[in-house]
């Protein structure tokens, strides 16, 4: 029987409906569709998809179990390598990783590995999560700083190895960027909470309101713990550096998304934290965070939501799926356009942005063609809100407070491949070490560091 050349469709909310709510966009596969999709897998001997996965999931094995209808067994295989499958099954850039290596690409679309992972995670959550047997305690204690994807993965893996793990979180909620950054309609917060609960049931303790570097230092933690892992992320927003950026109406993507996602400003005044956006919103940048901002704006009632980006469509760093969803929802893309100035009214409230048209020149150090301003092409766009989503830098709080810690030129903590810093017993991984990257790469770093920490403790 010939293999179906395309993925089985995953049903999702219609654009005109979903821009009026914060519910998740796709509904996910049902069991029947998942089994059919799993049957597309060729079970290649060389397992290229596994090489594409930063957390080394045994992809063909769990797919085989699904294809044979052994869903519980499939869940077991999946969870032996990841503690956050419901998160990964939603926000991973599969197309560049597992699915990007799939043999089926030669004849059509890859196996929908991401959708299958999501199906398994949702199936297990609905059924009630099974907690693996506890390993014999090693008597060693590890402190994890930050409860984002790197920290949670590291914590989960170390707990499975029998170490006593405590996670210190500065905010009042777990998950880091999964909670404050990624919107509800892309990653429901109940799912993040469920995955964190699973990690807690592995024996991990999570302490909130502890700002490591302020409330307690890493050195003090090491008096009580045998090792520490720092996964404090890339929390420092970058700015455009143009006049008017401090006007009322200009937000960093971080502030806007934190208000809406973590503080639930979309439910103001039931929740106390407000956000206001007016009628016309412009988001600057074209990564996943920018798409999240533009799509969130529509859901908050914006009449027009622009993406303003200085390069062309080809260079947009966001995932195709995110760009596609944004387009479907009516986000307007103003490409090859660079902001030069914000202006406000006499009260200091943002009114418009002045932009320049750009053209592409020779490739720059990033390999992408450099945008060059077209002189005299200035034009103005009326806007009520500007969301600056041009990237984040590593959070400087820890790098600045640990004496002797080797810091890289972007303010990142320098580590080797396995997450060791220059100080024995202190490990780091995720965006704090690499600069802003993806959830899955942070998880991969957390996983590697867990292994290195285990080795260090022996």
């Amino acid at each position, binding site marked *: 029987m010939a293999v179906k050349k395309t993925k089985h469709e995953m049903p999702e909310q219609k654009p005109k409906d979903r821009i009026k709510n914060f519910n998740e966009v796709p509904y996910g596969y049902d069991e029947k569709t998942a089994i059919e999709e799993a049957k597309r897998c060729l079970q290649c001997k060389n397992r290229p998809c596994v090489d594409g996965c930063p957390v080394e999931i045994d992809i063909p094995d769990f797919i085989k179990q699904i294809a044979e209808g052994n869903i519980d067994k499939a869940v077991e295989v999946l969870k032996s390598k990841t503690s956050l499958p419901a998160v990964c099954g939603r926000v991973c850039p599969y197309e560049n990783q597992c699915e990007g290596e799939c043999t089926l690409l030669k004849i059509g679309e890859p196996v929908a590995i991401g959708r299958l992972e999501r199906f398994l995670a949702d199936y297990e959550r609905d059924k009630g999560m099974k907690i693996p047997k506890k390993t014999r305690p090693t008597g060693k204690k590890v402190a994890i700083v930050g409860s984002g994807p790197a920290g949670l993965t590291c914590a989960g893996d170390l707990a499975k190895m029998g170490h006593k793990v405590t996670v210190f979180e500065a*905010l009042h909620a777990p998950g880091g960027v999964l909670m404050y950054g990624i919107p509800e309609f892309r990653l429901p917060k109940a799912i993040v909470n469920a995955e964190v609960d699973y990690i807690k049931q592995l024996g991990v303790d999570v302490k909130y309101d502890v700002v490591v570097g302020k409330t307690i230092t890493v050195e003090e933690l090491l008096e009580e713990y045998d090792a520490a892992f720092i996964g404090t992320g890339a929390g420092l927003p970058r700015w455009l550096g143009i006049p008017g950026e401090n006007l009322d109406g200009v937000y960093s993507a971080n502030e806007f998304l934190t208000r809406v996602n973590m503080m639930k400003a979309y439910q103001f005044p039931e929740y106390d*934290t407000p956000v206001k956006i007016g009628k016309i919103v412009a988001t600057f940048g074209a990564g996943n965070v920018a798409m999240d901002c533009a799509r969130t704006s529509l859901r908050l009632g914006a009449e027009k939501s622009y993406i303003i980006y200085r390069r062309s469509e080809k260079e947009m760093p966001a995932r195709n799926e995110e760009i596609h969803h944004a387009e479907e929802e009516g986000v307007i893309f103003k490409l090859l356009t660079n902001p030069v100035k914000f202006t406000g009214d006499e009260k200091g409230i943002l009114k418009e942005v002045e932009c320049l048209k750009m053209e592409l020149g020779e490739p720059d150090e990033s390999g992408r063609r450099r945008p060059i301003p077209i002189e005299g092409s200035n034009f103005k766009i009326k806007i009520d809100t500007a969301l600056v989503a041009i990237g984040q830098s590593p959070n400087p709080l820890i790098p600045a407070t640990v004496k002797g810690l080797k810091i890289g030129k972007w303010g990142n903590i320098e580590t080797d491949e396995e997450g060791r810093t220059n100080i024995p017993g202190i490990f780091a991984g995720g965006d704090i070490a690499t600069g802003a990257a993806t959830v899955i790469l942070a998880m991969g770093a957390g996983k590697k560091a867990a292994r290195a920490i285990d080795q260090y403790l022996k």
Partner: protein
Amino acid sequence: MYEIIEKQVLSENVKLMKVKAPLMAKKAQAGQFIILRIDEKGERIPLTIADYDRKKGTITIIFMEVGKTTKQLGTMKKGDMILNFAGPLGTPSEVENFGNAVMIGGGVGIAPLYPIVRALKQAGNHVISILGVRNKDLLILEKEIDEFSDKLYIATDDGSKGHKGFVSDVLQKLIDDGEKIDIVWAIGPIIMMKVVANLTKKYDIKTIVSLNPIMVDGTGMCGGCRVSVGGETKFACVDGPEFDGHLVDYDNLMLRNRRFICEEEKACKLAGE
């Protein structure tokens, strides 16, 4: 959860609470702040640390009931729990022996001034304090600040106590009388800090102000608290809250602090119903 172990009503709208937070009390220093969230649906608000007791493990906060959250906090009693309480945040005050320090507090800004007054006195400074309020009933911490001040002046808008007029009048008189001032601290309403800083700039007296912009996380992540200082964008939560008073763009700060005024009114109105 963080227990309120003591509550005092200092004046009509100003309340003091001692909150059990041992880790934070161990680290707290003058000039720093905390962020609290009352309950699951609450917002995160920053409050400057008015005092701390390392032995008892408490942080003292003093706040004026101005918005939905502070009003709600004001109704809480001894024994009640605050859901989240994080800190100490921000950079501590630079405490050294400057010589002659003039410490100016306006309204509820007197509260964060107090631990700095004490620290500076203990560091060997000659301390002159000037406290300004609308009327004498609103004056807080007079006795406490007096204890660590060599001289204490009061200014009230209505003349019900001390000088009738502004703290800046008292400062101007000190300067006119030939007082040699090495440093000024001014904490209070933005307009007060602006007026004081404009005055001391004329005489080239170093002036520190403590800013209280709108914040969300308080750890340098959101940039909501950004202020323009000497033409550079700084985050009050990590770079501050204290800054060189001569470099702060007060007008931009006032504008940014009005960002959610309509929403605040709406929330207060709903809460009142």
